[in-house]
């Protein structure tokens, strides 16, 4: 490309050179952000200046040197007109620190709070379901008590009635089992209606067990157990399944179609299934205090069940021994039962040591203790002690049941408290996370709006931002 030569009229009044055109072109290019009017005015100034300079006898190069190179010149123009692209860009890129800090903090709190809320939501659901499950333990205990009584009555009802003994304990047990507990007068004789029907003071054991299982089953089947450990869920479901099997056993007992021992074994299974529930619930929680209470509840219940199992066997042993019947291994079974009860008692007291308070399973004193000691020593024919033993054993049951009931109430209260706390924790963390995320959203919107505004103003004079000329 050939360099155009400067063209100057002889009068020196007009000058259009490559230097001038190049300078103007460069300046025009660098004033892209100005309004057309502003740009044209500046270019007119330069154009006029070159003319004035030429008329004054200055060369284009001298004129350019006086103005400064296009970059410097346009930088001054932009600065004077308030165009400060660097400042605007910087302002756009550096949003107010307060907003950024708020946004970052709110996001951090929102994310951490959200994570904690999700975690605590799971914990809250689990705690709620555990509390509800623990709330069914009273119904389970009632079922266990009813089953233990039924088992005892089935055992006693299977015993022979000695001749001349009225009322016979076996017949009384059968009546209590099938018909109910007769109302007796002051002389201990059953009260009858005018038509000769016996008046019953309490429903039959079968009816009582049926009522207890029905109530328990209704509560358990209503439970939401999705957040519980599978073992706990299965344990509770098993007790409900047992309810379907129980009427079949009761029917066979009523028809005397099965021997007492298989029936007792069936009852043992039903009772074990009920006793297992608090143990599985204890394993379903990481809360040691709650777990210890549930474990103690289960241990005391096992001890009560063991004593309730022991009592009819002792009755059977003493009765058969007194009748001169061949023990048929009953003595060995009863010794084994008493030994098992003793280990359960130790286990119950060990479990009770782990919970607050100094409650212990009541000692087996009086005739209860004496009879057990005699049997362990091989003397199983103390019929004279049987009634007192039975009364002491029942009383012991009642005392141990009071301890169990107290444990259960404490367990229920603690589980409810934990569920309430877990829910509160969830609500607080979710609330904090929600508020934090809301703040983050608002600050984010503000930030975006400011950025956009800054971006829009990047092409406008900075004085618009400052409110006065730069």
């Amino acid at each position, binding site marked *: 490309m050939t360099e155009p030569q400067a063209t100057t009229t002889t009068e020196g009044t007009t000058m259009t050179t490559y230097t001038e055109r190049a300078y103007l072109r460069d300046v025009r290019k660098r004033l892209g952000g100005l309004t057309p009017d502003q740009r044209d005015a500046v270019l007119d100034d330069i154009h006029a200046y070159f003319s004035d300079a030429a008329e004054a006898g200055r060369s284009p190069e001298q004129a350019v040197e006086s103005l400064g190179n296009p970059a410097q010149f346009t930088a001054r123009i932009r600065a004077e*007109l308030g165009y400060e692209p660097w400042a605007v860009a910087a302002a756009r890129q550096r949003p107010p620190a307060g907003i950024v800090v708020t946004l970052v903090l709110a996001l951090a709190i929102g994310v951490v709070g959200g994570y904690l809320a999700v975690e605590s939501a799971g914990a809250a659901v689990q705690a709620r379901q555990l509390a509800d499950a623990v709330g069914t333990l009273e119904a389970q205990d009632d079922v266990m008590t009813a089953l233990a009584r039924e088992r005892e009555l089935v055992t006693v009802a299977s015993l022979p009635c000695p001749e001349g003994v009225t009322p016979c304990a076996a017949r009384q047990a059968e009546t209590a089992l099938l018909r109910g507990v007769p109302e007796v007068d002051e002389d201990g004789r059953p009260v009858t209606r005018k038509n000769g029907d016996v008046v019953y003071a309490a429903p039959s054991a079968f009816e009582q067990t049926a009522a207890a299982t029905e109530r328990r089953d209704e509560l358990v089947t209503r439970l939401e157990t999705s957040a519980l450990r599978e073992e706990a869920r299965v344990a509770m479901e098993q007790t409900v399944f047992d309810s379907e099997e129980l009427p079949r056993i009761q029917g066979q007992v009523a028809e005397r179609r099965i021997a007492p021992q298989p029936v007792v074994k069936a009852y043992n299974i039903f009772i074990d299934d009920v006793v297992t529930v608090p143990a599985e619930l204890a394993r379903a929680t990481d809360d040691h205090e709650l777990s210890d209470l549930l474990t103690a509840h289960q241990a005391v219940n096992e001890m009560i069940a063991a004593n309730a199992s022991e009592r009819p066997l002792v009755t059977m042993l003493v009765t058969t021994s007194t009748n001169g019947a061949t023990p048929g291994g009953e003595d060995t079974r009863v010794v084994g039962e008493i030994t098992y009860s003793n280990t359960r008692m130790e286990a119950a007291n060990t479990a009770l040591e782990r919970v607050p308070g100094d409650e212990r399973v009541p000692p087996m004193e009086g005739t209860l203790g004496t009879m057990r000691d005699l049997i362990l020593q091989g003397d199983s024919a103390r019929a004279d002690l049987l009634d007192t033993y039975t009364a002491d054993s029942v009383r012991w049951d009642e005392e141990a049941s009071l301890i169990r009931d107290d444990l259960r109430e404490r367990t229920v209260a603690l589980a409810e408290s934990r569920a309430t706390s877990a829910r509160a924790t969830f609500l607080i963390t979710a609330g904090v996370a929600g508020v934090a995320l809301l703040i983050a959203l608002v600050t984010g919107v503000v930030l975006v709006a400011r950025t956009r505004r800054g971006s829009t103003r990047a092409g406008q004079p900075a004085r618009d931002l400052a409110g006065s000329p730069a």
Partner: protein
Amino acid sequence: MNDVRIATNLRKGVLEYCVLALLARGEKYGLELADDLIARELIASEGSLYPLLARMRENELVEPRSVASGAGRPRRYYAITERGTEQLTAFAQVWMPLSAQVNALLEESR
């Protein structure tokens, strides 16, 4: 070096009013105005004047107009506007007593 910095800062503050004061005497074309300011050591080169004129024009303190100049291209003259005059008056009201006080102080401190 310190003298230059003081002079630069002072000039920055008053240059606009000096231009107005010169134009208050009568309109001038760019180079004429620049030469006057350079002669008074208020600017170093034309490169400082035109950006200032651009702002003053934007702020409606001065206005350009083209005047035919013989056979050559028309000259671009600058004239002070009414607003520019008001600004100059306001500046003078501030500057006179201020400069008097500063001068007096400087005299006293000698």
